[in-house]
């Protein structure tokens, strides 16, 4: 099931608001969405007119935690993504390219899961279970299995990114 979380995390990578608002919360709210519910849209709902036009540059996030996943759940996630992709094919090339990036991220993540450690720079919305906190060079890290994570803002969302202490 953890694999499905990458979709939720992708959603959480959402937009953020600044001036008036918004989106800081969207990610938080989205994290409450059950993991089995994938989110359509890449990148989710633009919150500005300019945002719609400039979406193609927006990032697509997220890979999964190293503890990820039975093959079955991975397949379920892939199936959901394919469904999302099918819906998106009626949409724009920008979306299709975002979807491709998402699939690429998923592939990388699955490869990483197989090897037991995530590539550096992998971004997740939530830490896997069983992490311990440590400080190195004045920076806090979470050690989770073979991986170290540091906290960062991605847009206005708090995320965790794999790093080397």
């Amino acid at each position, binding site marked *: 099931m953890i694999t499905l979380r990458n979709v939720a995390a992708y959603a959480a990578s959402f937009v953020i608001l*600044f001036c008036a*608002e918004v989106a800081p*919360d969207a990610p938080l709210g989205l994290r409450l969405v059950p993991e089995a519910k994938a989110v359509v*849209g890449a990148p989710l709902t633009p919150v500005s007119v300019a945002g719609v036009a400039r979406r193609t540059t*927006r990032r697509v996030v997220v890979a999964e935690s190293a503890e990820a996943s039975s093959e079955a759940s991975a397949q379920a996630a892939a199936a959901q993504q394919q469904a999302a992709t099918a819906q*998106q094919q009626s949409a724009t090339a920008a979306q299709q390219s975002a979807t491709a990036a998402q699939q690429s*991220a998923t592939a990388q993540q699955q490869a990483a899961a197989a090897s037991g450690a995530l590539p550096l720079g992998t971004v997740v919305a939530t830490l896997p279970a069983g992490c311990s906190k440590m400080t190195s060079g004045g920076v806090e890290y979470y050690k989770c299995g073979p991986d170290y994570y540091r906290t960062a*803002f991605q847009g206005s969302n*708090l995320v965790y990114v794999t790093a080397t202490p």
Partner: protein
Amino acid sequence: MKALHGMVPTLRPLDAARRLAAAAAVAALALASTAPAPAHAQASGVDPDAARILKRMTDYLASLPQFGADTSNVVEVVLVSGQKLQFDSASRLTLQRPNKLRTERVGDVASQSLFYDGHTLTLFDPNDGFYATVPAPGTIDAAVDFARDSLDVVAPAGDLITTDAYQRLMADSTSGFLVGKSVVDGVRCDHLAFRGIGVDWQVWIDDGDKPFPRKFVVTTLDVAGMPQFEIRMSNWTLTPDVSPKQFEFSPPPGATRIDFLPVGNAGAQP
């Protein structure tokens, strides 16, 4: 229904009754329609009245040395199943031209504040005690672009508050018309509707002597389910607290400084 839909923007000049009928037709379509309206049914061009009313609002906001407003926001998210969810948030916006801005989420389970003092931009998450501070351009207009392009922090109201908001909004808008009068949160407004590339947007503007925007809706056309973002603005004030501490961030004891990830960080990258 298609015919009606196509008629709406072409009824120019509309008298009041016809505008009402047109608005009703639009509303009925919005309720009844399950299929996206064909783009070719839309007339092209921006109605001069719509352009004039929009520009009056953006010029007015640009002319104000400072202002504050409360915002209430709803963003829709579409699940793969087609089910649509809405997420609400509320914020307080304080702006002082040319280079001070603060937004603060209020009354929410989670909170987040953004500080821009003309030199740096800080995003602060007080619940978790994290903040990130980066150098920023010297004007609000440039900072809005910087935040979007370099930080992926998107300013929806940024569409409205920059001094060149009219040009920004109209740059890619292919059509626009005055739907008619409407009342938003008890305030009589002009309701405008525009179409851009992949986006429809609407704005409701106070029709009195202080033409504040009261509501702004962005509809994304090329995402399944056409999700919308809506922002309502109220409690406008011309005399907000603009003391320096409103815009300058001082990390509270125990807060942890973190970084913004580079934009374009897609998936796993070394």
